[in-house]
Each structure stands twice: as structure tokens, then as C-alpha cells.
């Protein structure tokens, strides 16, 4: 068990060590799916959901199954995450076709989202217990959503500006990300 309080875990994952802006986790959706605010919000929510499930499964795996074989950690985590996303996809399809339609394309993308796997690994490395893991997952998910939404709303406004030709697309996105990361440094030490 880690000594950190739930508050500091939550706040650290969401703001101070923001998954995307400080740890570079979940960059694929950040660069790819962050052109529209609505999409960014949905992607963020889908991520929170899967993050929480992942945290639960990683905890179960660590506590009951991998105790004697920690060297199988990477392989079991990734298999569990891949199947989890598949199951979530199937369940949502059955239960709420509307939601499925909205989330549909994002769910498979989540499997290769480093944030999900990163969460499982970090949670293990820092030996969080059940509740700490959950808090970590929600904090990380909200942090991802925050970064995605900020990026998306900035990109939406910049769409109409006369961006210099060389900066169109990735160049500008990376500079915005850098600026956001600079701004988030203001939260350093806030633990």
C-alpha cells in the first residue's frame, strides 16, 4: 500500500502530473481525435469508463493471480485490457445501441491508448490498493478529458485563423500542447 492520500493521488493524476501533458500518455487520441469538442468529450468519457474497469482488473490480477508470477504482468495486463474493451463494446452494443453509435469508433482505439496500459503499470509500480487505484483511474481519466477538451476547443477556434502554412496540422498542435504543458507547470508543488 502506498502512503499517499486519496486526494493527492487524484489531484496528482488529474492536474499536477496530468497523464497527457506531463507523462505523454494517451497522445494518440490527443493528436488525432481532438479536433472537435463534442468528440473530445465523448472520447474522454469512454476513456474514464475503461480506465476505471482497467484499474479494477489490474488490482484483481495483482492481488490474486500474479502474486507468484509478477513477470507475466505485462502480458496479462494487455490481454485483459484488449478483452475488456472487446467486452465493453459488445455489452454497450446490446444494452444501449445509441451510446454504441456514439462511442463506436473510439472503443477499439482505446486498446492501443497508452494511457490505459500506463495506468495499470503505474498503479502496480506505486502499489496502490483498491480504493487508491480507483481514485487514480478517475483522476487520470478526468485529466485526459480536460487535456482533450482544452486542445479541441483551442483547435476549433484556430480553424478559422490564418495559420502559417508550415504550422498547419501537427506543428501547431504540438506547440499548443507545449504551451498547455507550460501553463500546467503552475500547478507544480500543489500536493
Amino acid at each position, binding site marked *: 500500500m502506498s502512503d499517499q492520500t486519496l486526494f493527492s493521488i487524484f489531484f496528482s493524476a488529474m492536474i499536477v502530473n496530468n497523464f497527457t501533458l506531463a507523462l505523454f500518455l494517451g497522445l494518440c487520441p490527443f493528436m488525432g481525435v481532438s479536433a472537435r469538442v463534442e468528440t473530445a468529450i465523448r472520447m474522454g468519457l469512454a476513456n474514464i469508463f475503461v480506465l476505471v474497469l482497467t484499474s479494477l482488473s489490474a488490482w484483481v490480477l495483482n492481488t490474486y493471480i500474479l502474486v507468484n508470477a509478477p513477470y507475466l504482468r505485462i502480458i496479462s495486463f494487455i490481454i485483459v485490457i484488449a478483452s475488456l474493451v472487446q467486452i465493453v463494446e459488445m455489452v454497450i452494443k446490446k444494452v444501449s445501441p445509441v451510446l454504441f453509435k456514439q462511442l463506436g469508433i473510439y472503443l477499439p482505439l482505446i486498446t492501443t491508448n497508452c494511457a490505459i496500459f500506463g495506468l495499470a503499470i503505474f498503479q502496480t509500480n506505486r502499489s496502490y490498493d483498491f480504493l487508491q487505484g480507483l481514485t487514480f483511474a478517475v483522476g487520470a481519466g478526468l485529466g485526459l478529458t480536460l487535456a482533450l477538451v482544452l486542445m479541441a476547443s483551442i483547435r476549433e*477556434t*484556430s480553424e478559422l485563423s*490564418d*495559420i*502559417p502554412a508550415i*504550422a498547419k496540422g501537427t506543428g501547431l498542435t504540438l506547440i499548443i500542447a507545449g504551451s498547455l504543458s507550460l*501553463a*500546467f507547470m503552475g500547478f*507544480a*508543488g500543489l500536493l
Partner: protein
Amino acid sequence: MNDSSIRVTASPHVRSAESTTRIMWSVVYSLAPVVAASIWFFGPSAVLVLLASVAGCLITERLFGSVRSSLADGSAMITGLLLGLTLPPGFPLWMAFLGGAFGMAFGKLIFGGLGQNVFNPALLGRAFLQAAFPVAITTWPSKPESWWTLQGDNLALPLMSPVVDAATEATPLGNLKFGDNPVITPLTDLLFGTTAGSLGETSAVLLLLGGLYLAFRGHLNWHIPVSILVTVYALSGLFYVIGISQFPPLFMLFSGGLMLGAFYMATDMVTSPVTNKGCWLFGIGIGALVVVIRIWGGLPEGVMYAILLMNALVPFINRATQPRKFGSPPRRVAEKKKEGGP
């Protein structure tokens, strides 16, 4: 001119006397007393630092700006002045120049120039400097004996470190937060600027006067500074009264870069929200972040970060506070209809 009696022109057809250039230059004038005060307090160092950061901005704008942007509109000048005013007097000139260039290039030009940037360029430049040279930018030299003496390490060679051995002094905020014998600096010192600090943040009175002048001329949206100052006062007052912070509310208001930030940085028309409602949200957000970072953060001052963070939120605030078209149904109803509701 052709002989037709009807002229076809593109809109706008009604032009007011206001223009970007005019507004920008009146901002420059309103900064004059602050600049003069910083020279009065810090001597030739202030002149050099201000010149270096202004040069960084002007040269970058000239080199990389598109055809439409010109130096004459005064916006690059303002960015340079504001950046310079947030720097300590002993700051190496090459760093000040670099900050101006970075802020201009990546805070403004990359977004397409004036009117299209998201972050306040001066503050982005300063945030870059803060991250790049954290020691130099928080070193506040003590006053030299003669006014003519340079303060600190202005003349450090490019890429080279300043010598930090010079006698230093803590800012009022830094002293209260990290000092070994924290003292609450008396209010009169804060008001008239006889404290250590950045060039433009020592004299609260002059900043207030400049701000009032701008507000009177209608060049700044008074909603923003008012909401920031009220939030800071109320929130820090609350925390002070219930005993979880050692910062008295008036001290909070008049110390550090709050006045400079509230009147000159946050009110930047390009990087603040469009609607008044949005401006209030924006101001309250800045105020709250300033209080939180100052009390619990790792740095003594948080105005710069608070404004940058809220700058990033402005596009979102604009979306959320978009006034609905006259006669259109409230948004909830509209959304329900879109989803195929009854």
C-alpha cells in the same frame, strides 16, 4: 475613381474612430507611468531589460510576421513592454530577448498573428523563461547604492549563466511563503513600490491609475479586472479568516503581479472571452487560481499561470456562453429536438 455615382465597397461601411492601432497605442501610453516608475526604482537595469524584451518581440514580428501584421499597430511593442515588466531587474538581457522572441513566435505568429492567438504572448514568453531559467527569473537583487549601478547580471553573455552571488532580497510574497522569518510587508510599501520584485509589479498605485485610465477610455473590459480582484479579495479573505492561510486579503491584492496581470494581461482583447458573462467566469477563474497557487503551490506567485490557464479555457468559455440567436429556443430544447424527441 470611376465616374459611376454609386460606389461598391466591402463591409464594414460604418467606421468608428476606434482602430486597433489607436487602442494599442493608448495602452502603451497608459503604461508610461509604470515604466517610468520602474526606471525610477531600478535604474538603468530597468531600461536595458525593457529594451531587450521589446527588441525580441519587434525583431521576431518583423522577421516572421505575415505581410498583414505590421510593427506600426503597436501590439508587438505592448507585448515586449508587458513581458519586460514581469521580469526581475537583474535579469540577463539575452534571456529577456529570448523570452520576447519565443512569446511572439509561438504565442502569436504561429496562430496567424494579431487577433488570432489563444495565449497571451507576453505571458507565454514569461512561462517559457520561468521553465527554462527558474533560478535567474526568481533572483531579486538588492538595491545597489547608486542609482546608476546596474542591478544583478544584465550583461551575462548569451547562453552563459548569471553569477547568482550578488546580494538578493525576497519579494513580499516569497518572503511570507518561504522566508525563515515571514513578515507581512506593510501596505504602504506595497502601494508605492518600495519592495523587491519584477520591474512593473512593485507600485500598485500607478498600475491602478493606468488601469483606470484605460477603463475610462473604454479600452478595457472592466468586468475582467473587477471580477479578478473581487474573487481574490473574497477568497483569500475567507481562507485568512478561517485560518488556513497566512496571507491577509489586502496583502494578496497589492502584492506581486496581480494588479499588472488583472489590468493589462487578463484584459487582452484577443485572449479574453467575448461575452460579459464569459468575462466574469474568466475573471473568477483567474482569481481562484491565483489564490490557490499562491497559498498551496510550489511557487510564490501564480498570476501568470492563472491567466495562461484561463486563456486556454477561453475558447471553451466562449462556446459555453454563446448567446443564443434571438428567437431560437433554449439550447436544451434545441438539442432534444435534434435527437429526434417529440
